[in-house]
């Protein structure tokens, strides 16, 4: 596991390909917050090291350190960041639109992402066969994306819930990236495809994407 190197108060323990880490990276970029990136290689099992478990009991990435405060779980981190650093708010002021952002975020974080993470895919691979992983993932992503298309059709503007980027977008962008990696046919999801195109134009999103991270395999620092 990488060790903190700088005196920067904000440190993010992250894996380049983790969509949960990507959500937080987008938020930090949007808010213009400097942070130290500390890679955790989940394929090598670094999330199970005693040091990391002390930071994050469940062993998942991301984990944020802000001085003496340690928070894991992307949803908790995002709401903490939004309250502590209110520049570039991540939630609309309208209570109804806020609720729709929470709903969209939670469709991703509870109904899609947990059902296609590494643990589950390994289980499917071992119990059935490696060939079953893709149908499983595509089924759950497809179901979630169908519901997001319907949920957001009455709210979307340039972005998921209007013409400003909000919490829902921070969850959608990394999930769409992951879906494309699993060869989900995005033509079925015209709204999400349009949002994906919009996100690709934003530096805060672009710079947070997996291939841009220091620990990505193509990076010279990895």
């Amino acid at each position: 596991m990488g060790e903190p190197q700088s005196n920067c108060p904000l440190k993010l323990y992250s894996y380049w390909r983790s969509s949960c880490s990507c959500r937080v990276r987008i938020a930090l970029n949007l808010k213009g917050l400097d942070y130290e990136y500390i890679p955790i290689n989940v394929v090598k099992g670094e999330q199970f090291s005693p040091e990391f478990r002390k930071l994050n009991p469940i062993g998942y990435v991301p984990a944020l350190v802000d001085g003496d405060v340690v928070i894991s779980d992307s949803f908790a981190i995002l709401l903490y960041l939004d309250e502590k650093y209110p520049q570039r708010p991540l939630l609309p002021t309208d209570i109804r639109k806020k609720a729709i952002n929470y709903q969209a975020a939670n469709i991703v974080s509870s109904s899609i992402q947990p059902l296609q993470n590494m643990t589950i895919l390994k289980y499917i691979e071992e119990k059935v066969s490696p060939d079953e992983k893709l149908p499983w993932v595509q089924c759950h992503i497809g179901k979630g994306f169908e519901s997001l298309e319907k949920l957001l059709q009455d709210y979307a503007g340039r972005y998921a819930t209007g013409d400003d980027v909000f919490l829902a977008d921070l969850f959608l962008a990394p999930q769409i990236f992951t879906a494309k990696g699993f060869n989900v046919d995005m033509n079925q999801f015209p709204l999400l495809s349009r949002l994906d195109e919009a996100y690709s134009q934003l530096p805060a999103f672009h710079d947070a994407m997996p291939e841009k991270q220091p620990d990505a395999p193509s990076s010279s620092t990895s």
Partner: protein
Amino acid sequence: MEENYKASPLKLYSYWMSSCSFRVRLALNLKGLDYEYIPLVEGQQYTPEFMKLNPISYVPVLVDGELVIADSLAIILYLNEKYPHQHPLLPTDLHKKAINYQAASIVHSSIQPHQNQARYIEKEFGPDQKLPWLRYHIGKGFAALEKLLKDYAGRYATGDEVHLADIFLAPQLYAATKRFNIDMIVLDARLWKLF
């Protein structure tokens, strides 16, 4: 204020055994909010009428006038903001608030979605696979919660008042013990004390 919430047009679509619905019922009760309980029978969540309310076909769904919200965490945070004075569901301290969000997320994203898959696991891999699956995911989540909360718990999960973490923990503990007969003594003692 009292008149407002007693005249509230809140409707809750709920299933009696659903731990997600249970969370919202707890929040509504804590805040003393009247609501119409609309029960779903099994299979009803796939009807066109219900899927119009919630495209992903899960309960609970809250209807507040013209606003329809699904997902227990979204509903609870909405209720907490709309009715802030009756039993606030989050502490004011930012760090403690974050611990509550984290605990809620561990249940919401790391335990319950996998618990929900148990029926599929039983069907695809056999009845003898169901309990190991449940024990693994519930056990892993409870072990993490045990560590997360040990420096914060008082009478309740994050102190001496009931907050968001408790609203997520109680139904999960109920499911683990009453529905799946998970051995809480083996898993941990402290969460059992909270329950």
